[in-house]
């Protein structure tokens, strides 16, 4: 139920002075910059600027931090589209179709679409949060290892869709990715596959591995080209095309809505969040499309699916934070620190007693989605100029940035070394038709899968039928089956009816 008194008070808090909006604009810009530089994470930006929030009241502090979150959610799409570098795991799926679009000279459209989908995803995410905050928080309490295992299995089935024509090699790549993610200390307390290297005790850092496989391996190949886009006539930065891309997002309402729903519900699950939601949304969109083979070749729906899901998962993770006081990921963990700095504990009591503040945060985020359009439109033309840079300058600069970013993620030279090793592996995979995206998804989901399978084993006492005793798990399982075989079943039914 919506508390109208609290809603009125929330409007008063936000619009009685201009202060909240003076905080939001720099927050979005900081997020955009940190998101756009590979290796600088949103959580890092929030942590760096967290001390500033000490001098703000709680609501302003939350507005500032969520503004960084909002800017960063879209910022990550820029290098993913222009350079095939998903700076964070939340925009892996954006690179699948965004980068091929850029290579075809459709970089302006792709960036416009990503901006539009991000803003719509953000709007839907917070709208759902506004209406369903208590329902979502109750639902999250019913999500245990059984449900998580099914969600992760759903994500892993994406491997099959990304096999680019060779299913066997795609599956081998994905499974090798899963094995890579299990290197290092596991839940059993023993180290595996480290071969004596102290760097590997904590496992293979996923984001540097992803940067190496996706970006560095591609840059090796591109070093001989003159420009990112071969056709000089297409090498332009056009505000008209960016705006056309922005409008084009509206022609995919189902993809946006589906991505936003997946984003909110998966984003609300602690520890999973947008890393999985963008992949799930992409997979479901691809499976339900009439031309699934066009994905990975520059299909704009792929960008919409990924960006709407990763942006709306912000709303989902905020639901868990506000209603339960549980952070869903790095960014919300920093927000939890802001809660602590202001002596506030998230949870049902907080929502009951400070409903006006909760509503103010949500309404401010609606406005942030519109502000993001304006600020994004200012920043995109500047950043899109990267297509005009000759490859002999772009390749070493991006490779160096990848190395700096990887160091930033791990804090030691294991990050750059991971980029190097995985760039060679990525090159080898591409050369011999193994699927790089499938391997990256394996790396990303493998360790989560192992943790959840272990928890499930411990809770169920080894009885796997335990999954079938969990209603939420059964619902997710049915959704998984529907996403895998729904189209085929429908076609079969239609054929039978017509006969």
């Amino acid at each position, binding site marked *: 139920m919506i508390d109208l008194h609290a809603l009125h008070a929330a409007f008063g808090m936000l619009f009685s002075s201009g202060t909240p909006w003076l905080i939001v604009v720099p927050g979005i810009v900081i997020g955009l910059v940190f998101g756009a530089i590979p290796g600088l994470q949103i959580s890092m930006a929030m942590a760096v600027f967290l001390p500033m929030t000490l001098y703000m009241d709680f609501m302003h502090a939350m507005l500032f931090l969520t503004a960084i979150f909002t800017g960063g959610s879209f910022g990550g799409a820029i290098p993913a589209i222009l350079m095939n570098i998903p700076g964070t795991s939340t925009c892996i799926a954006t690179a699948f179709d965004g980068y091929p679009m850029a290579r075809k000279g459709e970089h302006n459209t792709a960036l416009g679409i990503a901006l539009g989908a991000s803003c719509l995803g953000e709007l839907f995410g917070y709208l759902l949060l506004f209406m369903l905050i208590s329902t979502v928080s109750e639902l999250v309490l019913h999500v245990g290892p059984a449900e998580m295992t099914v969600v992760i299995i759903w994500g892993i089935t994406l491997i099959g869709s990304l096999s680019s024509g060779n299913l*066997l090699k795609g599956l*081998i790549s994905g499974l090798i990715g899963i*094995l890579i993610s299990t290197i290092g200390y596991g839940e059993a307390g*023993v180290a*595996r596959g480290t071969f004596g290297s102290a760097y590997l005790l904590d496992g293979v850092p996923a984001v540097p591995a992803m940067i190496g496989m996706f970006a560095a391996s591609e840059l*090796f190949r591109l070093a001989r080209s003159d420009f990112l886009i071969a056709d000089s006539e297409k090498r332009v930065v056009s505000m008209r095309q960016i705006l056309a891309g922005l409008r084009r997002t509206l022609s995919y309402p189902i993809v946006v809505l589906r991505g936003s729903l997946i984003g909110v519900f998966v984003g609300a699950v602690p520890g999973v969040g947008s890393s999985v939601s963008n992949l799930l949304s992409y997979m479901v969109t691809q499976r339900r499309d009439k031309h699934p083979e066009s994905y990975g070749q520059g299909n704009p729906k792929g960008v919409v699916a990924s960006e709407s899901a990763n942006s709306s998962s912000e709303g989902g993770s905020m639901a868990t934070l506000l209603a339960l006081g549980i952070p869903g990921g790095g960014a919300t963990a920093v927000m939890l620190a802001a809660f602590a700095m202001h002596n506030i504990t998230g949870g049902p009591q907080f929502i009951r007693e400070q409903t006006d503040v909760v509503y103010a945060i949500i309404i401010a985020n609606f406005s942030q989605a519109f502000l993001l359009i304006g600020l994004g439109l200012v920043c995109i033309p500047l950043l899109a100029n990267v297509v005009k840079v000759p490859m002999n300058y772009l390749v070493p600069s991006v490779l160096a940035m990848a190395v*700096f970013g990887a160091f930033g993620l791990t804090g030691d*030279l294991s990050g750059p070394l991971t980029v190097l090793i995985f760039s060679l592996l990525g090159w*080898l995979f591409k050369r011999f038709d193994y699927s790089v995206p499938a391997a990256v998804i394996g790396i990303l989901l493998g360790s989560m899968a192992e943790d959840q399978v272990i928890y499930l*084993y411990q809770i169920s006492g080894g009885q796997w039928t335990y999954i079938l005793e969990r209603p939420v798990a059964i619902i997710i399982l049915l959704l998984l089956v529907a996403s895998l075989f729904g189209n085929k079943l429908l076609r079969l039914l239609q054929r039978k009816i017509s006969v």
Partner: protein
Amino acid sequence: MADLLVLLLLLGLVAMYGIDAVRASTHILNLILVLPVMIVIAVLCAAQFVIDLKDFRQAPPPREPVRQVLPVMLLFAAYVLSLQWLGFDVGTFAFLCIFLWLHGERRLRWLLAYSICFAAVTTLLFAYMLPYPMPMLIFDTAY
């Protein structure tokens, strides 16, 4: 032939990891995911091996010559491996200079100016932003 060798290499690496994982512990929590995944990989590799063997006499698909990519790979490897000694400041500068020279940039002043500016700006930006010290040769390691 090369396809078969790559497949065997991947299978060999998986087997090495498997042996190491079993040696580390045979407890179910250690192998609950790793072992089934390895078995599936072995089965899939066997199937792919049969396919590759059938195609053995066919001409391989056209691929980019390795010698075109090798210099970039080696230079990148040298850059990453030398960071410990050269630091991010000098290492990045040297990497950019050599790369640009190898790829046809002969305007020496421009080459040096770009390499110095890029290396200095990026190194200082990250050094200020990151909470841990970075290996450096000229700049301070922590800010």
